């Protein structure tokens, strides 16, 4: 059991868009940080530490935390630390913030994930994440490998493009109820997705996540500080991380081994036997429609190959047994450095019952997932009750 229970007491998100023409990087981050501070009713000077991160070569700013931690967040004369692990940056930030408080070293910590993707470009940045000799010459960012794996997955379990398209339809109609989401398509149809331009077979444009600009901030507090500011926090019940090999290609990405390992550990720590029964909502990391089908299997929501089935049976729809991505997910919003932190924030919003039109009724336990690097997964489970 950790020394100190840790709760999310404040949340801030910018309205995610393809291009924020009106603000520069610190000004964009300030929006989310200020919103989280106001939400938590905590004075900027009372924040003990700031954990902030993005992916360096997307915007080309080295030690970006030393600029943004001071000019966008109340970091002056305080600890400002950068954690960055690729697509999992957001969840790594959330987990680092959790340990900052669970260790008892700090009481109130501000965690910020951000990305201004269109200043440099996602695919260009992602290519630089891989081996310069063996992988970069042919790599086409994340979408290339994700397309390869979608074909592997399709061949193995007979999954059809229509089943994949239904994920986009579910998530982007969910996003219509989420004021922060980038792509909101209330009347999207399978045909609309199936007729969009072929990007990288079998991935069409609307099978893929967008490039978004925006920031997300959450504030953690220990038990004592939490009581002072809210009686409706979201407690962190368990965190788990599973990394994998250096070369992303050593294994097949569909049926994601690290998701199976990390989710089992997170479930064990949070006392979850059957995720579909014991969890009330899940915010997972789906860069493509196909990813959600396969990775709900790796997360133990169903047996291998049945990701399409549980979607068709409505289990993962709003109103189903385990709604997945009421926020619209990554398919609707993808500011990579913030994406996995948005999952944590949205899970917290569901636990706090503040989801508005996207709220799942009486949520006790929510799962959030980060994916990135060479097939890494991070899980945080949030709940209404503290661990003890």
């Amino acid at each position, binding site marked *: 059991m950790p020394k100190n229970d840790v709760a999310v007491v404040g949340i801030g998100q910018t309205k995610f868009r393809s291009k924020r*023409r*009106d603000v520069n990087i610190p*000004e964009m981050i300030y929006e989310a940080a200020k919103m989280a501070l106001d939400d938590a009713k905590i004075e*900027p000077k009372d924040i003990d530490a700031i954990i902030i991160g993005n992916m360096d070569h997307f915007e*080309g700013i080295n030690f970006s935390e030393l600029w943004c931690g001071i000019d966008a967040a*109340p970091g002056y004369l305080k600890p400002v630390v950068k954690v960055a692990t690729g697509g999992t940056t957001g969840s790594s930030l959330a987990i680092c913030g959790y340990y900052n408080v669970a260790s008892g070293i700090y009481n109130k910590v501000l965690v910020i994930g951000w990305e201004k993707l269109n200043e440099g*470009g996602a695919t260009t940045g992602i290519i630089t994440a891989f081996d*310069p000799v063996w992988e*970069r010459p042919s790599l086409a960012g994340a979408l290339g490998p994700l397309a390869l794996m979608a074909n592997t997955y399709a061949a193995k379990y007979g999954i059809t493009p229509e089943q994949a398209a239904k994920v986009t339809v579910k998530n982007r109609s969910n996003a219509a109820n989420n004021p922060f989401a980038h792509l909101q398509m209330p009347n999207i149809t399978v045909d609309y997705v199936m007729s969009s331009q072929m990007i990288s077979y079998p991935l069409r444009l609307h099978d893929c996540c967008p490039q978004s600009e925006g920031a997300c901030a959450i504030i953690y507090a220990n038990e004592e500080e939490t009581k002072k500011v809210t009686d409706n926090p979201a407690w962190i019940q368990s965190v788990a991380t599973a990394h994998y090999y250096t070369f992303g290609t050593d294994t097949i990405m569909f049926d994601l081994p690290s998701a199976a390992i990390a989710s089992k550990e997170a479930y064990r720590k949070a006392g979850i036997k059957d995720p579909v029964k014991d969890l009330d909502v899940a915010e997972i990391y789906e860069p493509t429609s196909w990813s959600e089908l396969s990775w709900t299997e790796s997360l133990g929501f169903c047996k291998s190959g049945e990701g399409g089935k549980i979607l068709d049976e409505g289990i993962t729809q709003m109103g189903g047994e385990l709604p997945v991505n009421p926020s619209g997910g990554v398919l609707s919003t993808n500011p990579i450095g913030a994406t996995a932190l948005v999952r944590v924030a949205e899970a917290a919003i569901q636990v706090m019952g503040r989801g508005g039109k996207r709220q799942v009724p009486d949520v006790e336990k929510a799962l959030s997932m980060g994916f990135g690097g060479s097939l890494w997964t991070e899980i945080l489970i949030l709940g209404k009750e503290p661990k003890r």
Partner: protein
Amino acid sequence: MGEEIEKKVFRGRIKVPYKHTSGAYVEKFITYIGKNHKIMGVKCPKCNKVFIPPKMICFECFEKMEEWVEVGNIGTITGFTVITHSTPVLPLEPPFAYARIRLEGADTDFVHLIKESDPSKLKIGMKVEAVFKEKPRKRILDIEYFQPI
């Protein structure tokens, strides 16, 4: 020997043309330099400090700053150095000087260039004046350098 080394390494590069949205504060500061040869700062409503270069947040008070204040084109040197090492991103041929300058009316210093290669010719407290570029290119170097007066 060079041939041996080349076998052991891969000559790669990270080459990306970044385009950074400036935001209102950078736009006004850079535009005023280019168009009006004026240097604009912003004032914090709480501690009344005038910041050069200008930005949205006063980091001491964590307050949004909205009041613009024109500062002088003349200032005093509060620190300087003369560099001799060359790098691919230097705006001038070394040796030349970097100086910290406190412009009249500003409460913070501002680092820029001085075309001086002999440190004995520069002193803390000296007066310097901004020299503006004829054809501005929307960047901080639209002030080409500062000139001792």
